[in-house]
């Protein structure tokens, strides 16, 4: 990729160094070992089941429905959840896990039953966005899941469009139980390692905790503003 342009850097950074009363820092600055590190103590020795409980409790507080199921029962669970939305259209990531978990079968059945199912397809470009905007339901996997805050972490990729978790009215995240970690600390540590090892990270990383909301009108909480109006997490317990 062609490097971007930089304007006025030297003068600007020289001014900062001058204000700080020293020469410009030209050799790498070592990040200190922080004296206090309370973040690693949160849910430190929690088991997978305990983390799942914490996730469930937190999701109650953030207006997010949580269902648990097994890989075998996953499609039935999807049917139940999506029936509830009376969905005419679904948009989904193109991610190998959908096939691995057998969700493609669900999509085929839904398609035969008259639901418009669209799998994100980079070859048709912006049409994906138009379809997502009109879709009743958007479905993605969680790449990492944070118990403490009830958060799914999504890494963008060619098949993993940003719009799928954003534009449809209802959002569903499939959460393999093994992706659940205590909190944001473990996720950012993972991303930090990814940066160090690969020299880059995906162009968009989203930490999503429930449906969009706002308290801008008289401090009344309104659930569902610009993003999805509902959020549902389906935890697959044997993955």
């Amino acid at each position, binding site marked *: *990729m062609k490097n971007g342009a*930089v*304007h006025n850097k030297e003068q600007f*950074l020289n001014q900062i160094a001058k204000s700080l009363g020293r020469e410009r820092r030209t050799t790498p600055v070592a990040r200190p070992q922080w*004296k206090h590190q309370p973040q690693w103590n949160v849910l430190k020795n929690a088991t997978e089941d305990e983390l799942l409980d914490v996730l469930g409790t937190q999701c109650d507080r953030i207006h997010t429905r949580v269902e648990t199921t097994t890989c075998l029962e996953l499609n039935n669970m999807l049917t139940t959840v999506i029936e509830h939305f009376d969905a005419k259209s679904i948009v989904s990531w193109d991610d190998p896990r959908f096939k691995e978990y057998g969700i493609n079968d669900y999509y085929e059945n839904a398609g035969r039953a008259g639901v418009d199912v669209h799998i994100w397809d980079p070859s048709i470009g912006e049409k994906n966005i138009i379809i997502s905007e009109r879709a009743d339901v958007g479905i993605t996997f969680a790449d990492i899941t944070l118990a403490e805050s009830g958060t799914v972490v999504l890494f963008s990729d060619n098949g993993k469009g940003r719009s799928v978790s954003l534009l449809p009215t209802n959002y569903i995240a499939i959460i393999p139980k093994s992706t659940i970690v205590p909190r944001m*600390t473990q996720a*950012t540590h993972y991303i930090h390692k990814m940066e160090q090892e690969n020299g880059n990270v995906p162009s*968009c990383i989203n930490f999503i905790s429930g449906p969009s909301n706002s308290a801008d009108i008289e401090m009344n909480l309104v659930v569902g*503003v610009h993003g999805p109006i509902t959020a549902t997490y389906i935890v697959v317990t044997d993955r």
Partner: protein
Amino acid sequence: MPMKIGDVEFFGRVDKGLRNSFMRNAVVSAQERLKGAKLNAAEELGDWEEWRNLSEEIRQHTLENLDYYLEELTENVCKQGGHVFFAQTAEEANEYITRVSKEKKAKKIIKSKSMVTEEISMNDALEALGCEVIESDLGEYILQLDDHDPPSHIVAPALHKNKEQIRETFSEKKGYKKTSKPEELALFAREQLRADFLSADIGITGCNFAVAESGAISLVTNEGNARLSTSLPKTQITVMGMERIVPTWEELDILVSMLCRSAVGQKLTSYITGLIGPKDKGDVDGPEEFHLVILDNGRSNILGTEFQSALHCIRCAACINVCPIYRHIGGHSYGSIYPGPIGAVLSPLLGGYEDYKELPYASSLCAACTEACPVKIPLHDLLVKHRRNIVEEHGKGTFGEKLAMRGFSLAASSPKIFSMGSKSAPTVMSPFIKDGKVKKGPGPIKPWTDIRDFPEPSKQSFREWFKKRDKGGDQ
């Protein structure tokens, strides 16, 4: 809108604030709610003080090495194909942003909430170019429709408006026909803005924290508008104050956790979005072009001074939510887009003592702000430093204050005059007393009695009482 709001002088603004009873009630209930939510969130975490210590340590280290981390950030943004513009002043920033908009032949620009773009009056510059600039944060959208009413809180900008006023604004400006129920109002804004998101040429955002190691910017929101602003338009411009940066993703964790808890008592807001340059090759959504504008605008003058820690601020508004002065006078009284204790510290630094000399005095120095600050900025100490500067270096003590101090030093230097003063108080005040209360006081106590009663001066002075009292007991 520039940092400075309006031309009314300080006491005029305060007067208006004190008389606005809806606003005052709204502020009180918002403060209670946000303060309570924050305390719960802090308590839940258990070792809040450790988190504060860590946050302070991170901010100190980053600011001490700011030139290094900004350089690292720049390299990494460029490596991804993004452009970086360093702007010394608001004018330079606006000049660059309008240049990009012109090149893109932009007609419609969608914005997510950003204090720094308010600080530089970016909207005015773009509108002068003929662009339509649309605020997408619900609170900002309401204010923009209402003829650019200024924000009164950095997290909840439309705090001073009630839902009936909002309904009227929507109906007058956008033909809204439904009720003043917040759900219906929000749904209407969603529908209106969806069309704008899809057709905007440029998306403009602020930046909560940049991550130097990846050349990333992060956005912390609940509504999803920042995600829309950065997923749909082909060009993204992000404007950041130069101090809003962390070394790595690991420090982002800490500061975002503190920001969400301190601002609204949430563990994390609905959306924390990390964006790294333009979209990857083969991606469909996300910008094709990314511009990062890094702004100084007076900040480097704060570095290396006794006020450096003011730059540690993460804009959570926790200090605002506990401030007894803000509670009474509201956000607009500060005459700056940065209100409350942090505003009283920051506005004179960025905008000068000439415009903001009263703000450091708009504090009872109770230190609730300092205690609330998640990154441990000693706010009330900084206010005292401002006061000292104003008096010592700029000779700008207020006339009333000087007179009062001179009067007191005269009176206190002579027991006779002092006793005469305290004895005469009941007589002097007697015409103003009604039902044992001073209801319409003269001179210096007028501002007080305009809004509340003042107790009648005691008929007996302390010294008299002391002389007359029996030994070892009540009189």
